């Protein structure tokens, strides 16, 4: 198929940036969206132009590295990662707009690449459990009810892609942060730092400049892993009960 691409180009953080239009032909419906961009970049390289920079890594939908706001939606028209989006979702002759995630906490580094290290700092603030290193513990040493294990696992499937932030009108990171708080709050291993974790991760999330939650539900609707809003409610419970009962004055 033949397509027109309107792509956000920006030299560096300081550059103002703007849209540039590209025509591209010979795209197969079986290609992934990123492969389509690879074709474009090969064209550009051959012409001696600067290729379009975008993030990607596994291309299997598991690492969370790919991003892109495609035709007005994070990761495009399907509820999946951009690497798992295929060109069969588009028609011959389509015009596709491609923008970077927009959030002051995710500054643009170049073109479509944004700096998502704010997520790493939220994790560093409390998204861990302290365990003694040593021999590998036996499986099932700590009994965990299956329903709890499943719910914690559902939260843990968050791949940290940032689509929730990209989709939210407030660029809020509540879905991400709540998933990371939840996955540990529900497990016995997570109890030691439970209160500290809720307070510190929320504080870091605020310090990074992510917005607040209006409960629009856009995050969950666009999340490639379908992380549920119940995690945000749980985070609120964890946080409110932590601030009233913890020893941090």
């Amino acid at each position, binding site marked *: 198929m033949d397509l027109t691409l309107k792509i956000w180009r920006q030299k560096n953080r300081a550059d103002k940036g703007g849209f540039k239009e590209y025509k591209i032909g010979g795209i197969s419906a079986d290609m992934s969206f990123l492969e389509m961009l690879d074709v474009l970049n090969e064209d550009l390289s051959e012409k001696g132009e600067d290729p379009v920079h975008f993030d990607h890594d596994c291309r299997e939908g598991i690492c969370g590295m790919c991003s892109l706001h495609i035709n007005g939606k994070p990761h495009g028209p399907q509820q999946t990662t951009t690497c798992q989006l295929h060109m069969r979702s588009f028609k011959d002759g389509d015009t596709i707009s491609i923008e970077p995630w927009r959030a002051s906490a995710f500054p643009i580094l170049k073109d479509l690449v944004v700096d998502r290290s704010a997520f790493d700092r939220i994790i560093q603030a409390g998204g861990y459990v302290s365990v003694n290193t040593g021999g590998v513990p036996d499986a099932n040493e700590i009994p965990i009810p299956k329903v709890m294990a499943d719910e914690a696992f559902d939260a843990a499937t968050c791949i940290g892609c940032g689509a929730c932030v990209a989709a939210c009108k407030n660029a809020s990171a509540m879905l991400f942060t709540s998933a990371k708080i939840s996955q540990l709050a529900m497990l016995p291993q997570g109890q030691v730092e439970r209160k500290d974790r809720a307070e510190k991760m929320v504080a870091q999330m605020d310090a990074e400049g992510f917005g607040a939650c209006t409960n629009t539900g856009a995050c969950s609707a666009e999340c490639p892993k379908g992380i549920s809003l119940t995690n*945000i409610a749980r985070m609120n419970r964890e946080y409110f009960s932590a*601030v009233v009962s913890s020893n941090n004055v």
Partner: protein
Amino acid sequence: MSWVTKTLNSTLGRKLVMALTGLFLILFLTGHVSGNLLLFKGDGGRAFNEYAKFMTTNPAILILSYLTYISILGHVVYSILLTSYNKKARPINYAVNRPETNSSWSSRNMGILGTIILVFLVVHLQGFWAKMHWGDIPYVTYDGQEYKDLYSVVVFAFRQEWLVALYVIAMGFLAFHLSHGFASAFQTLGLNHRKYSPAIEMIGKIYAIGVPIIFASMPVYLYFTSLK
């Protein structure tokens, strides 16, 4: 900063204030709409005027009314804080954006809806509440006791088509605000449960449609009865 101010300045703390004040205002609306049903009684306004006197003189009601003023103020101040904070988190908008595919219009426009409600509130309070408290108001006597005749003020006001229209339209906006706000407040408080949340959402929708309709029917009813 103490832990209290730190919490109230956090995104979650600010939302907590929005949810608590919003829920209190919902409680207030419930009482307000129930009491005002007396306007339909067709007794020349006696029951309504007695109720109005009770509401402005009873000491227990006084505490509730101060809580209501604080809630309105807190809700408005925090909505400004939150909305401007949220705007800063996304200074540059998308050139192409399709939020209608992932969220409801009301949920994305709570600030606009709230501002319209606030404008309405100013008109509404100035017209009735301020009049009742400090304004020139005729008196009636029931069983030898004097009452401010708020009823006739209300009846007189709603002879004006534009005011009736304003009230009906404002209630439409209130309905949209509540259609998102009701359930949203529970989610903010962390009250989310697979057993109860569907019921909360259902009650929220019924409340958001029902209460504004009853409110709006009052000026409409009084307007049409004044034509006779």
